[in-house]
């Protein structure tokens, strides 16, 4: 548990494994955990903007999801992100939605 904020250590999620820097030795191309999280936030935001939401890293420990109306929520990993995003956006976050696919293809 973090002594400062009282957040319990989180369980590893499958998306945290098999990163390019997993395994032993230095990561290829200097890939680091910090860099991976920035990459994750950047990519997720390209999808989330379709729903009027933004994601930010919070101390390398979890993520903060925010809506345009100022609502915010903490999520621990990607699987936990989507149910929260659906509640905030008030609609389904579906990667098979043709409108979302078209928006992602236009990026």
């Amino acid at each position, binding site marked *: 548990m973090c002594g400062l904020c009282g957040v319990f250590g989180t369980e*590893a999620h*499958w*998306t945290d*494994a*098999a*990163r*390019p820097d*997993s*395994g032993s030795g230095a*990561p*290829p*191309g200097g*890939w680091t955990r910090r*860099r*991976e999280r*920035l*990459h*994750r936030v*950047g*990519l*997720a935001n*390209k*999808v989330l903007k379709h729903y009027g939401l933004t994601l930010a890293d919070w101390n390398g420990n979890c993520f903060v999801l925010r809506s345009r109306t100022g609502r915010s929520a903490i999520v621990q990993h*990607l*699987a936990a*992100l*989507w*149910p929260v995003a*659906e509640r905030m956006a008030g609609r*389904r*976050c*579906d*990667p*098979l939605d*043709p409108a*979302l*696919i078209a928006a*992602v*293809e236009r*990026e």
Partner: protein
Amino acid sequence: MAAADLIPVNIVTGFLGSGKTTLLQRLLTFPELANTAVLVNELGEVGLDHLLLRHVDETTVVLPSGCVCCALRADLTAAIRDLYSKRERGTIPRFDRLIIETTGFADPAPIIFTLMAEPVLRHHFRVGHVVTTVDAVNGTRHLAQHPESVKQVAVADRVVLTKTDLAGRAQAEALRTACRRLNPAAPIFEPAVHPIEPDQLFTGDPADPSGTREEARRWLEAAAAATPPEMAAGHVGSHDRDVYAFSVTVDRALDWTAFGIWLTMLLGAHGEDVLRVKGLLEVVGVPTPVAIHGVQHLVHPPVHLDGWPTADRGTRLVFIVRKLPRQVIERSLAAFNRLAALGERVA
């Protein structure tokens, strides 16, 4: 603790009267399964005479998400914890494998979820192969009428066709075809024709280094043979026709992060209908393939293989779905992956 050091748990499932207990009864005579503990959900007509046999009453705790596959089986948690505690205290033999025989109507997904998510169990046990028995005499009817039966075949790693000696040739062949269409990645065994040995059913699960590469080669063959959904989806009205398998390829190496965003989003929206996903991924920055393996909302920890099982590289995923369109899944994954390629790899 490395995954290979955890105690493997195999689920033996199958519809009512499909021969689960008979199969177990035979398997447990092999010396390599002498140190196997068995949990049964129902005491059937065929008795199991085994030293480490326990009975559990089915109790399911549905978590607040309300998702059926992510339900914790409280009965199993208590029974497996108790077994493990006795094993560690030396009051029962030190078993090195656990087999759970489900009820005929059981959904294997909550059992898998329990093993992967329960805070104590997941540190001592790992999910091994799911073995599904299908009765050749009644199996076709069960698949058409009972969604439970379809799901049991769809999530199987191994299918055992029983009573093929009692079924007509055409009847057995129709069932083989139905099982291959529902789950092309699962090898089919017929004990009435060739006696089964435990290795054939239990070796090569995702955490078993001895057979992972061979298992991956099998998926790739299955991916090539998967029935195009356009053909299978044309028939409606029976449960087995709503479920079909197909493979998806990606035109360039996958960005792991983009794939994680895409798959978590897909399983969040359609996890109930993604009965199974298995794949071998070519990931940007990783020289060897990454194997991925999921059942509904549950994804096993990915495994890095030490090499490609065939000369043919590239990402291939096998999906077993209920009424989801292959083309849209493929287009969506490609779009998410290109998002990463275009984008913001922080320099």
